[in-house]
């Protein structure tokens, strides 16, 4: 019997309008890093081992081959190239050996949507009370919020009109349908 094949959540379904588009980003693998942040100095020790400061609340930071997103106190999401999770995981485990830190692959539990187009920020503001104005949610911004009624992380790693939306994979179809209804005026 053939090996099990991986399938993307939305199976190539996208939303394309003149001013707005939503596509599944299947190029990202996701790793969660958690530390026992209540212990004084735990985050500093972690950063020292990693050799770089970790992004603080509401921010994201780019490394050489990975993007770090702050996702909770003592918790970060690390985006890497899909398929390299195990390699990065092994590397991080080696770096953090001896520290109480939990690393877990979470690629399968999340859908990552690229939300773009001239109306992207306007449409996003229909699903969340976050201030998406470029002056407030520009390059390096990252926020955890309730979007369209579901928990989500939104990030703008590079600025511009492309914003990443991370949500539970089980809600991918709901979100796509929600975006379709919410962007009805973006043709």
């Amino acid at each position, binding site marked *: 019997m053939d090996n099990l094949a991986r399938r993307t959540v939305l199976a190539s379904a996208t939303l394309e309008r003149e001013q707005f588009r939503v596509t599944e980003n299947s190029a990202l693998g996701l790793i969660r890093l958690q530390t026992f942040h209540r212990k004084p100095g735990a985050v500093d020790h972690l950063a020292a081992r990693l050799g770089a400061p970790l992004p603080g609340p509401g921010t994201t930071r780019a490394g050489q081959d990975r993007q770090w997103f702050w996702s909770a106190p003592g918790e970060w999401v690390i985006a890497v190239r899909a398929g390299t999770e195990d390699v990065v995981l092994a590397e991080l485990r080696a770096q953090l050996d001896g520290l109480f830190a939990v690393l877990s692959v979470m690629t399968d539990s999340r859908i990552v949507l690229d939300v773009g187009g001239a109306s992207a920020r306007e449409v996003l503001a229909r699903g969340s009370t976050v201030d998406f104005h470029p002056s407030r949610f520009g390059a390096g911004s990252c926020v955890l919020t309730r979007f369209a009624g579901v928990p989500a992380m939104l990030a703008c790693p590079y600025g511009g009109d492309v914003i990443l939306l991370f949500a*539970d994979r089980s809600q991918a179809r709901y979100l796509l349908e929600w975006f379709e209804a919410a962007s009805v005026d973006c043709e």
Partner: protein
Amino acid sequence: MKQTLRRLPHARVDAGKPIRFTFDGQHYEGLAGDTLASALLANGVGVVGRSFKLHRPRGVLGSGKEEANALVQLERGEYTEPNARATLVPLYEGLEACGQNAWPNVHSDLFGALGLFKRLLPASFYYKTFMWPSWHRWEWLVRRIAGLGTAPQSADPQTYLKQNVHADVVVVGAGRSGLEAALEAARDSACRVLLIDEQEEAGGSLLASPSDADRAWLAAALREVAARENITRLQRTTVNGYYDNNVLAALERLGNHLGPAGAGPVRERFWRIFAGRVVLATGAIERPLVFPNNDRPGILLASAVREYSHRYGLTLGERIVFYTNNDSAWRTALELVEVGLPVTAIIDIRPAVDTALRQRAEDAGITLYPGTAVTNTRGRRGLRRLVLHRLTGQGEALGAPAGTLDCDVLAMSGGWTPTIHLYSQSGGQLRYRDGDACFVPERAHQAVTVVGRANGEFPEPLHLQPQWLTPGVSPEHQWVDFQYDVTASDIQLAARENFVSVEHVKRYTTNGMSVDQGKTSNVNGLGVLALATGRPIPEVGTTRFRPPYHPTTIGAYAGIELGGLYTPFQQLPAHAAHVAAGALFEDYGAWQRPACYPQPGEDEDAAVAREARAVRSAVGLLDYSPLGKLEVHGPDAREFLNRVYLNNIRTLEVGAARYGLMLNEAGIVIDDGVLVCLAEDHFLLHTTSGGASTIHQHLEEWLQCEWTDLAVIVNNATTQWATLMLSGPRARSVLQQLDSDIDVGREAFGHMQYRAGRLLGQPCRILRASFTGEVSFEISVPASCGQALWEALMQAGAAQGIVPFGIETLMLLRTEKGYLHVGADTDGNTMPQDLGWGGAVAKKPDDFIGRRSLSQPVGADPDRFQFTGLELLEPDARTVSGAHVLTAAGESTAGYVTSAYYSPNLNRSVVLGIVAGAREREGEVVTIFYAGRRQRARLVKPGAYDPAGEAFNG
């Protein structure tokens, strides 16, 4: 009303763009830029509505939000909208409207005769009149006669959106004050300014100014606003609510002005606005004067006459008379004369008026009636004549008759009421300003500034002399609230009946409770109440305004959260495979899960029965992915879980699994599931399907708030893994066909064991636990492989007779087996001893969440509802979840049926329940009551199927 054949030259309508519309079935023509009200007036239509209670004929009173009379039913069918204010409906091609609350039409209303019985129908007469024999006997008649418009009978096909926006400064109102405020704020280029205006175009009262200077100023200001990149304008947008934290709610009308045929994809947009500072430039509303028969068509607010003349270019009448108690109406009258309108007289209750104004009026040929009151009006469906009396002193008493005065339009002004509704909603305090007889902002509660007329800053002094009602004549027909037919006599009646609080008087008389929410009636009502109770107005106080300021379409509140988007839904990793297999989906929490997979010709019961037989005899496959999967890490993980679970976790070995119960601090069972020890410092905790988030939060609360010293990290891995349950006597042989490094043989992999490895090239986790009573493997692979695993197992099991089975089948199977389902077989009082876990509690040496509560006397009550099986005694008997188990006397409830199915494997009903003292009463016969029927049942041990528990080891 006089038909306007040719609009005045300075009007803001487009004479070159005629627009056809119908009102009450009659065809008319208006111009682009008209409202329905201005177009009706242009066509000489005087009667546009009927009053709510007495069906009095009513004409247009105002020109905007304050309109109390011109309520129309707009459009038909699914697009129909009741209570549309004709003054706010921009005219569009093909518009259809009809009057409300009248039969056959507003011009000739059969119920108009009610007006003759006014004295029999005072305020709240219905509370006194329809007491016997019951209000409900009368309700149908009252509802037929009284009413405002008709609700649509079919779903609204139009689309509504919601939008959030943040701004540093939000300016509400784009009249002169609002525009000045917005431009001032926008000087700081970093300041985001949101300028909101409710009219069709910006300008506020400037739109009704005949002054070239005013128009030039407006044009320049709008050009400057457009040039400012940091000003965002929302036109046709009404701010309806002002909430805490400077949050405003507004409704933008995107397509209403185009009508159903011409509207774009979105009709209205509901805005939630997060403001740093708010500037309210909401203007002021003119008040009517209160005098006998002041509701006759042809009697308008002076400000409305000004707007219809200058903005819409209407001539309105052949003899226009003004009636006022302040200077502003004089200025309006003089403006009208300047553009050639026939203003014939000004009646003023004040004995003396500013000399310059008086001189200008006399020069204009206007006859003046100082110190005079209108004491009646004449005209059947339109104003024809006024009856006048002289006033004595400062207007407190009526003097000699002053004759009559013919006219067809009366422009009245009783002063101005600053539009402080939003300010009041924001929590701001008001004070009464005697000089202008109005409430003005005093102390703000939030970051809000009120400017212009809304702040009581009138461009020129009013020199107002209040007159809350006309003295010396009956108050019976002196209207205060035009829409709800509240007269001065009604308020006086309320005062006589000891209603002292303004809030109570409002509700007793309904003054200010109608669609316009008292925009023209509130202050006059206060004045009448103050006179009736002998108190000054500040002592009477004013009502607190609440949202919405103006009616909001319900569709706008709903937005896109309708139908399939009513609430978020979750789909299984193998959703597409279930669709292909013909699953009947049902919602279990947010999850869309197959209830069963009916084959052609099968109903749900038949499908469930077939699937249940297959699982017992062969093998079935269930998508079990929502099963909660929480991973608990850390050196203190075991200690933590030992405190969380009722069970002893200290003895759980690596690779082993244990069923456990979780309690809250009250000792109530909140969840159950299988806990797996993956490593000394790593546990996998299974929760009930759909309970993962709740239990995760429960764990985090204890870690973050109570046991902050425990080095433990929890993460929710529920949706990282697709979990399929392969169950049935042939499950093992199906699984053995898939390439894996895990030995699933009977000896190698026993019940309640756990293995991790690889399956068909992917990481996998397999748990041997059973919720069906059969040999079961709960197989987890990365969620993106879930569909592939489903397909692989169905292919591998084809020769073994594998069937997909759904949640309803699982529920039947576990009920046959007598397995508890927390949430279904427990209620908010269930403690572990009610489930037979008293021994485990006693044996556990350590403390755990809820233990202390278990020792309370209530936990030892012998009549606690306890989990039990129920065997129905009549052949082929069936019952349902929720049926009552009766006490021995048969008169009250002593328990409930919690799970009930007809078992195709046992050919009888299988029933579980919670019954008072059930454990001590085993074998006793009880009565089950449901929907009027009584059945006998015996209390038995749960688990009718395979009581020896051999099947799941097979």
